[in-house]
């Protein structure tokens, strides 16, 4: 008896770790677009970047339950770091990424102490405040950032000294997609690890989490710092692939958009960010091409419909679909209680 239970237990526990069919498909298709959609690489690049940005947000929101309306702070810092490096002659993209990740991580670590306490609303506003202040600083420090005119003269060297950025954005897209994929793998490992589990427990009930011996604050600081680094990389990618940085990398709408993107795609399973990015960007692109003045209306309408149609249920579907056969998500009992306590 107990052995087959043991198997069942380890199976169910490791379930989340397994790669579902849908997942593999997803990435194959993503790679395929490199060849099949040459004239869309520019927007695909942007999608990959926002996707990564959203993954970063998902790490703290979906897994640690830290809501943030100021995630652009890290995105922007990353962008400026990479941009400023490039303008001052350090044109190697990967170096830029690394530097961006580090600076963003540092800021993340420092500000993480601000978001440990308080209600969701409080966290929203504190993060928002941080981003706004940072934006203001960037505006004032025009000698460094180019202020409101934006940072010009950003010219990137070839990646690994081999691949030049081209005007069709193919290199750019390949570059962003690769980075996003690699970072995704890491994130995926993390969220299915015991550490990831502890994060979910903290999100669910911090009081109890402490009561089972979890150092709640340390865990939160760690993930917040990591997420910041991710966001920083995303920002750096944007700066490097567009070779221009302006104040709106720090603007409120960045934080808001990424939040939208993530929520559309669904929180707490990493793919939400990517899917959301695709849906949102494609919709925006298509609709705004059709009615540049009033596309917002239709986007808004779609958002409303998504919610009313029961976003959570929708994403739940997608989730299961992802995991393919392997993925059986926690379901509510659809039968009478299987056994009453006695019969075990």
């Amino acid at each position, binding site marked *: 008896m107990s052995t087959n239970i043991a198997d069942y237990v380890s199976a169910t526990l490791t379930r989340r770790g397994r790669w579902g069919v849908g997942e593999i498909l997803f990435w194959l298709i993503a790679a395929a677009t490199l060849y099949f959609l040459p004239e869309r690489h520019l927007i695909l690049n942007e999608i990959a970047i926002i996707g990564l940005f959203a993954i970063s947000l998902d790490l703290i929101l979906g897994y640690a339950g830290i809501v943030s309306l100021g995630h652009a702070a890290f995105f922007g810092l990353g962008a400026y770091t990479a941009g400023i490096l490039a303008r001052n002659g350090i044109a190697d993209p990967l170096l830029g990424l690394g530097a961006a990740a580090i600076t963003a991580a540092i800021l993340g670590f420092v500000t993480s102490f601000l978001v440990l306490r308080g209600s969701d609303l409080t966290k929203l506003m504190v993060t928002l405040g941080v981003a706004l202040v940072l934006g203001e600083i960037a505006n004032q420090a025009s000698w460094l950032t180019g202020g409101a005119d*934006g940072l010009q003269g950003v010219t990137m060297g070839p990646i690994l000294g081999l691949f030049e950025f081209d005007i069709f954005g193919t290199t750019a897209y390949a570059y962003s997609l690769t980075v996003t994929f690699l970072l995704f793998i890491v994130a995926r490992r993390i969220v299915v690890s015991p550490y990831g589990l502890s994060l979910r427990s903290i999100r669910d009930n911090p009081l109890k989490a402490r009561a089972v011996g979890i150092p709640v604050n340390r865990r939160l600081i760690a993930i917040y710092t990591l997420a910041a680094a991710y966001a920083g990389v995303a920002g750096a990618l*944007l700066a490097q692939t*567009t070779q*221009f940085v302006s104040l*709106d990398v720090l603007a409120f*709408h960045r934080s808001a958009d990424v939040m939208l993107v993530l929520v559309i795609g669904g929180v707490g399973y990493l793919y939400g960010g990517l899917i959301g990015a695709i849906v949102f960007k494609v919709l925006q692109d298509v609709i705004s091409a059709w009615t*540049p*003045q009033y596309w917002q209306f239709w986007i808004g309408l779609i958002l409303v419909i998504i919610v009313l149609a029961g976003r959570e249920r929708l994403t739940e579907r997608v989730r299961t679909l992802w995991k393919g056969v392997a993925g059986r998500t926690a379901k509510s009992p659809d039968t009478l209680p299987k056994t009453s306590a006695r019969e075990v």
Partner: protein
Amino acid sequence: QEAVKIGLILPMTGPFASTGRQIEAAAKLYMQQQGDTVAGRKIQLILKDDTGVADVTKRLAQELIVNDKIAVMAGFGLTPLALAPAPLATQAKVPQVVMAAATATITEASPFIVRTSFTLPQATVPMAEWAAENGIKKVVTLVSDYGPGIDAEKAFTGAFTAKGGQVENLRVPLANPDFSPFLQKVADAKPDALFVFVPSGIGAQFMKQFVERGLDKSGIKLIGPGDVTDDDILNGMGDVALGAITTQHYSAAHDSPENKAFVEAFKKANPNMRPNFMAVGGYDGMHLIYEGLKKTGGQGGQALIDAMKGMSWTSPRGPVSIDPQTRDIIQNIYVRKVERRDGELYNVEFATIPNVKDPVKAAKFN
């Protein structure tokens, strides 16, 4: 042969939407008046909304270049939005016609940039000179704390102090609901005049609060480049705007047959809108492109940009020409005063400074 495509990239949504609307309307109007074929080739206008975000502008420009193979890109509502795609213009040899953004340096970002709007120093320096000549000794400048604002502040301060005037600078955050603290500072400083530059939308609030504080009665003149008394909303401001003195290149009240026709047609095509300096920038931008294409018959960006250099014509705003050296526009700057004309408020021109070049670059070139 297939059509000549013009990519028009503007902020059609977000805080700077009204800029986009004015330019779009004017551009459409021009095409409707001049027909959509030039030198035997069809003209196709592709409108894109960059929501006022620079990296989007750049992406859109890039897509238009590589996918739609546009011959010219135009629009660009704000300085960063104009600067972001500049490298593309150079790289792809696609002329970039700036119809709004007004920071002086823009045209230096690429040899393919040409501008049909104006530069802030161009509109501001005359203001300084006029002020100095009209017995104004002490001025407080109050500008929105972003690129153009700082440009205006620099230009005015430089020119005015050169004429022996005395200046104190104030900067207001761009997103700023309430001017009272700054106006209070002005009141305390008791200058002869207050020089203002704020993005056109905010201008109205500013005017109202200026009057509400009774600064007008305490004898402080309100001067500045034309943005505060933007024709588009001037009429709605009401009497508070009366008497404001501004210098700019265009007023809907400019007295010329071309302008009368333009304003009329514009209003007809867009009820409850009045053309402002943005609109005329778009209108002339289209004219420049059309004429350029006529000359070159659409062979290559280099040819087109060369053709545009030195071109001159009579715009609704008056005589204008493109400086072959800087690819910036040379035009008259008018000193205007807000007055009521048959029931509506207008910037009525009462003095003209002919053929003003952008002073910043002019200074560089000699």
